[in-house]
C-alpha cells in the first residue's frame, strides 16, 4: 500500500462502504395518465355508477355487544331494510355486478382467464407491489390498463364498498352487456398503451375473434402460440437493456450493535 500516512484517510472513507447490487433493468412503470383523461375517466365512471344505482347493501345489524358497522346506503333514501326483506344483503343489480370484476383478486383471476377488456387500477396504493403484478399481466394479454389516482376514493362511495383498488370490465357476448359497453369504449380511447421492454418481440394481438370462439382457461397460451406462428417471419428482437447497477451506501447514522471485536 502507500505510505503509512495515507491509509488512515482511506480507512475513514471505507467505514461507510458503498455496496453495489445488481438491479433489475426492467422497471415496470405505469404510463403517465394526463390530467384531463384522468378526470374524464373518473367522472364517467362515477356518473355511470350513480345512474345505475349499483350498490352493495349491508343490513345495519344492531348488535349492542359489538362495534356497530354502519354501512347505510347513501343513494337510496329507504329506511334500513328489514330482516324479512329479500334484498337484505347484496347488490342491487346482480346482472351488472357480474360484468364487473371488483377487487384485486377477482380482477387477477379474470385477467388470467382473459375475461377482461378494460382495466382500471387505483394509483394511490401503498405499498405498490399490491398492484404491480397487474401491469405485467395485462400487458401480456393486450388489455388496456391505466392507473388512476383516487380511483378508490371516488368509486367506493357510489358502490358502497370500503376500497376499490382494481376494477375490470368483462367481455360480454350478448346484448346483455349494453350497460357498460359505451362507458368502456369511451374510456378505452383515452387509455395510453403500456409496454414492457422484454415483450417487444412477441406482441399479443387483440383477442376479439378468438375470445368468442374459445372458452376455457388455455386461452392465453393458445392465443400466444397462434400469434407467434403468424409472426414467425418477423425476427423477434428484444433489445438489450443497459446494465443497471445500484450503489448503496450503508447508512452512516445506523446504530451498530456492540460487536465484540477481536483484535489480533
Amino acid at each position, binding site marked *: 500500500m502507500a505510505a503509512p500516512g495515507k491509509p488512515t484517510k482511506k480507512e475513514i472513507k471505507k467505514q461507510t462502504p458503498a455496496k*453495489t*447490487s445488481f438491479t433489475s433493468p426492467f422497471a415496470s412503470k405505469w404510463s403517465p395518465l394526463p390530467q384531463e383523461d384522468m378526470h374524464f375517466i373518473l367522472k364517467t365512471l362515477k356518473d355511470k355508477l350513480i345512474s345505475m344505482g349499483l350498490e352493495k347493501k349491508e343490513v345495519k345489524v344492531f348488535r349492542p355487544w359489538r362495534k356497530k358497522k354502519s354501512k347505510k346506503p347513501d343513494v337510496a333514501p329507504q329506511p334500513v331494510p328489514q330482516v324479512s326483506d329479500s334484498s337484505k344483503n347484496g347488490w342491487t343489480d346482480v346482472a351488472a355486478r357480474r360484468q364487473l370484476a371488483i377487487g384485486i383478486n377477482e380482477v387477477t383471476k379474470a385477467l388470467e382467464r382473459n375475461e377482461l377488456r378494460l382495466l382500471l387500477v387505483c394509483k394511490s396504493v*401503498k405499498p405498490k407491489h399490491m398492484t404491480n403484478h397487474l401491469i405485467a399481466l395485462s400487458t401480456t394479454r393486450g388489455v388496456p390498463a391505466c392507473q388512476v389516482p383516487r380511483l378508490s376514493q371516488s368509486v367506493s362511495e357510489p358502490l358502497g364498498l370500503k376500497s376499490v383498488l382494481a376494477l375490470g370490465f368483462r367481455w360480454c357476448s350478448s346484448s346483455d352487456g349494453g350497460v357498460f359497453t359505451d362507458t368502456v369504449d369511451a374510456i378505452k380511447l383515452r387509455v395510453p398503451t403500456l409496454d414492457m421492454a422484454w415483450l417487444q418481440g412477441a406482441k399479443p394481438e387483440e383477442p376479439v375473434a378468438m375470445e368468442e370462439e374459445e372458452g376455457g382457461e388455455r386461452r392465453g397460451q393458445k392465443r400466444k402460440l397462434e400469434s407467434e406462428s403468424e409472426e414467425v417471419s418477423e425476427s423477434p428482437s*428484444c433489445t438489450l437493456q443497459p446494465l443497471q447497477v445500484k450503489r448503496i451506501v450503508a447508512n452512516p447514522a445506523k446504530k451498530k450493535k456492540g460487536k465484540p471485536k477481536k483484535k489480533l
Partner: protein
Amino acid sequence: MALHLKDKEAYQRLNYLYQAAHCVLAQNPENVELARFYCFSQKTIAKRLVLRQDPSVKRTLCKRCCSLLIPGVTATTRQKRNKTRFTVMRCLSCGQRKTLLNNPDYCLWADR
C-alpha cells in the same frame, strides 16, 4: 472503486441472463425450463461471487426451483388476509409460496 473490474463482467452476465429469461418467456411461454436454467445460472453466479441482487429481482425468482416468476404466466398472485394483509405469489411449477406483507410504511433497506 476497487471492485469495479472483476465484477463488472459478472454483472453484465447476470443482466444478460435475466433479460434473456424474460425474452424466452415472451416468445415461448411454454418453455419454462430454459428460463429456469438461465435464472439458475444467474443465482449460482451471484452466489459464487457473492454479488448482491436487488429485491426487485429476487422477488421475481422462485427460491426453490429458481424459475422466473411472471404473474399470469408462471405464477399466481393473490391478496390474502390473516389479520394483516398479504400479497401471496405462488410459483406454478413447484408450488412455492412467497408472501409479501402489505405495510404501507415499509421501506426496503435498499431504497434508503
